[in-house]
């Protein structure tokens, strides 16, 4: 079995993002970028499945500007076998991404697609579900545990009320949550090796996908700042403030 893992290049989660003055978006120039943290977890899971002998190949796909190839290299250094790069604007919408990925899946025929539950830039939380719908596959979202047989995946999902276990037919799309695993660091020799691993380049045109956006961004703004509060000196003072100023306790 082959596993496909879509990985997105996003602003590193430690960076405090800045909104551009002209309100067209956030500043991406000279900002540290990284693989979406959920996608690292997805890559790690795919590698573990391969190491357990349940998959032969882990193929990464990234859609984005040319630097997205660096993100593919990061995943290859973790241990993935090869990468597919599809050049597209940074803002390519989830629906278009899902269509591109579904078309790649039709060519590659993976038994499983594992992706992040959410990209931490657009916070959309929809690509995996959309891709699954387009392919007509089963979906298991927000996974915190995955176990496989040749026909099925049993997945524990993190839901609002707690945990839920479902069994889905393969091929499936699984979207991963934070507690599925702890992604590995790439070792120096593996980083060197990754440089020689193949990355194929495809285009939206060659895949026959129209990536014209459906949403137009009118503006991007800073959130309203909270007014600075005060420090209290004791628990007694805190309780008093809460009683008299807030009145909720």
């Amino acid at each position, binding site marked *: 079995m082959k596993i496909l893992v879509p990985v997105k290049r996003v*602003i590193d989660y430690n960076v405090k993002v800045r909104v551009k003055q002209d309100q067209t978006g*956030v500043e991406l120039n000279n900002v540290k970028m990284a693989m979406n943290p*959920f996608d690292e977890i997805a890559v790690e899971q795919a590698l573990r499945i391969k190491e357990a002998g349940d998959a032969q190949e882990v193929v990464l796909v990234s859609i984005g500007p040319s630097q997205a190839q660096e993100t593919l290299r990061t995943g290859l250094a973790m241990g993935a076998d090869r990468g597919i790069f599809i050049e597209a604007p940074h803002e390519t*919408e989830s*629906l278009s991404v*899902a269509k591109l990925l579904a078309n790649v899946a039709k060519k590659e025929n993976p038994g499983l697609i594992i992706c992040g539950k*959410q990209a*931490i*830039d657009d*916070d*959309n*939380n929809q*690509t995996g*579900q*959309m891709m699954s*719908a*387009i392919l007509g596959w*089963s*979906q*298991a*979202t*927000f996974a*915190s545990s995955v176990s496989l047989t040749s026909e099925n995946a*049993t997945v524990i999902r*993190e*839901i*609002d*009320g*707690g*945990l*839920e*276990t*479902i*069994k*889905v*037919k393969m091929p499936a799309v699984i979207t991963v*949550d934070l507690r599925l695993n702890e992604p590995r660091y790439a070792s120096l020799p593996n980083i060197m090796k990754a440089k020689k691993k193949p990355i194929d380049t495809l285009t939206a045109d060659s895949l026959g996908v129209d990536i014209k956006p*459906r*949403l137009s*961004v*009118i*503006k*991007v*703004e*800073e*959130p309203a700042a*909270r007014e600075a*509060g*005060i*420090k*209290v*000196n004791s*628990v*007694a003072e*805190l*309780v008093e403030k*809460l009683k008299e100023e*807030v009145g*909720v*306790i």
Partner: protein
Amino acid sequence: MAILVIIEHHNGAIAPATLSTVTAASKLGEPIEALVAGHEVKNIPETSTEIKSISKVLVADSGEYAHSLAENLAPLIVQLAENYSHILAPATTFGKNIMPRAAALLDVMQISDIVEVVSPDTFKRPIYAGNAFATVQSMDRIKLITVRSTAFEASEASGGSAVIEKISGTGNLGLSEFKSSELSGSERPELTSAGIVVSGGRGMQDKSHFSMLENVADKLGAAVGASRAAVDAGFAPNDYQVGQTGKVVAPELYMAIGISGAIQHLAGMKDSKVIVAINKDEEAPIFQVADYGLVADLFEAVPELNSKLE
């Protein structure tokens, strides 16, 4: 054209986030109709008819909708879609699971997690963990939307008088199967709709220490929450996680105890009315958003707080 709200329900009760979703829908126009899909939904349709501003409740009571499996629910939404200009669901794990699937089948780009209706085709939504807000205009014929419940008041749950219309199911695709669930189910108020939330972080050091917070929460009638670090460390169950990738809360009072205030955590609680932080590190970023900050060792402050609340 009418607007459709998907009713989220569990164990015979409508999820509170649904009522906020109805409020968001009411800013788009009318009539507002609702869909109750499930198996043996009992009183949910009747309860739904009482929600203010809903005029019709469609009920699809059929085995394939038990446990809200997305593969079966999405085709039902798709089948209904042509009658509506907008379809909305709460941005809960329920809504996040099913709506994008329906959107893709309809060839529509979903608008996730809206916090404001600017006009019937234009919406405001947080991006980058709420460090920016995007106003987006949809060019799709039909708009599929998930709603951040804390950004909209709950619609009144009574006073409505909708009619019920039964509709048939779309069949079981047999792609997935529910096995079991392990719900945390507590006596305390539900986290996302509680008036007060008491949250603990890595500073709590151990699972057993969370009982200190539970004592305080019980006295205040509060829900208990946690940071990701606390959940990862096993101090609290996953559904306690507040933040960018957990739950979003906006109570009257949020108490962050032993939580540093990473942007991913702030994303889930910054809109709380009053924020209290107890942290021994006076430089902790949580103090930048706290209305009342107490620099103290939580192992002294929390028991003292508890006794002061007697």
